[in-house]
């Protein structure tokens, strides 16, 4: 994954960048499988590696395949990114150890989900039970966000088309 990221940052050919992005997503999906998060891995593989790659290729079809050389060296951005990364790493030091059974997230509602989800919802996949039932409002919100994204794309691109037609007439 580190190699993919370095190649991503160095490459100037946008086609290569898109393919490398897909490779990165697939590697991320395998990491998630290794962490036993199969649902998330599936989403990452289909959305990150599949759908984004296709949409980016469609966007690439509309523009040039080479990234322009930056006007000046982005040292300031590099410094800011390093600093934010450092702060985030410093923040992780305060988190409980990985797979610690006594960490707060594992003693709050998770035991109830794991123990009672099958009895209460009749759905063996706890992820689905939490997503659709216990956290139903959140998922409704997410669906609305997806809908809003689609509506936004329609609103933006369609108006431009109508404007172009108006100019043709006048």
């Amino acid at each position, binding site marked *: 994954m580190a190699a993919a990221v370095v190649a991503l940052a160095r490459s100037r050919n946008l086609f290569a960048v898109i393919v490398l992005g897909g490779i990165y997503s697939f590697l991320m999906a395998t990491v998630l499988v290794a962490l036993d998060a*199969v649902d998330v891995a599936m*989403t990452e593989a289909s959305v990150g590696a599949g759908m984004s790659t*296709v949409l980016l290729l469609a966007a690439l079809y509309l523009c040039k395949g080479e990234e322009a050389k930056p006007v000046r060296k982005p040292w300031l951005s590099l410094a800011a990114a390093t600093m934010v990364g450092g702060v985030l790493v410093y923040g992780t030091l305060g988190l409980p150890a990985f797979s610690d059974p006594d960490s707060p997230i594992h003693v709050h509602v998770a035991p109830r989900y794991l123990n009672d989800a099958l009895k*209460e919802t009749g759905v063996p996949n706890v992820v689905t039970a939490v997503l659709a039932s216990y956290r139903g409002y959140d998922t409704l919100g997410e*669906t609305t966000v*997806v*809908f809003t994204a689609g509506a936004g794309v329609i609103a933006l691109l369609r108006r431009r088309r109508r404007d172009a037609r108006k100019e043709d007439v006048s």
Partner: protein
Amino acid sequence: MRHDLVLRVIAKILIPFILLFAVYVQFHGDYGPGGGFQAGVIVAAGIIFHGIIFGLETTRRVVPSALVETMLAAGVLIYAGVGVAGILLGGNYLDYFVLSADPVAGQHRGIFWVEVGVAVTVAGVMLKIFYMFGGRGQDPE
């Protein structure tokens, strides 16, 4: 790409299986990994695959733009409708226990329809974005 025989034949063989897999992911989401989001994306991927191989115009005939736009809103409405159905049957919003005489079966039913709503919206949005980007600069429509 229109004249690429191998691609066209392979696509014709593969697309039904992609769609079938999406249906499996959708309805088996209760028992294994999967669910509405993943199934919706896989459906859209299958149709976009069709669009890339056979051209956008052919795909627009198979899956019309109007249908895609309807799907966009219908999914959210199905999801919200499940919530309203909960209210009408005497529970809270998005309360699935009242959807059936047996509370557990009610939960199952609620989750099923909610997942259907998610899948429909996700597939609709993905296809719409693809249509919008793919159609730019080609047809004045």
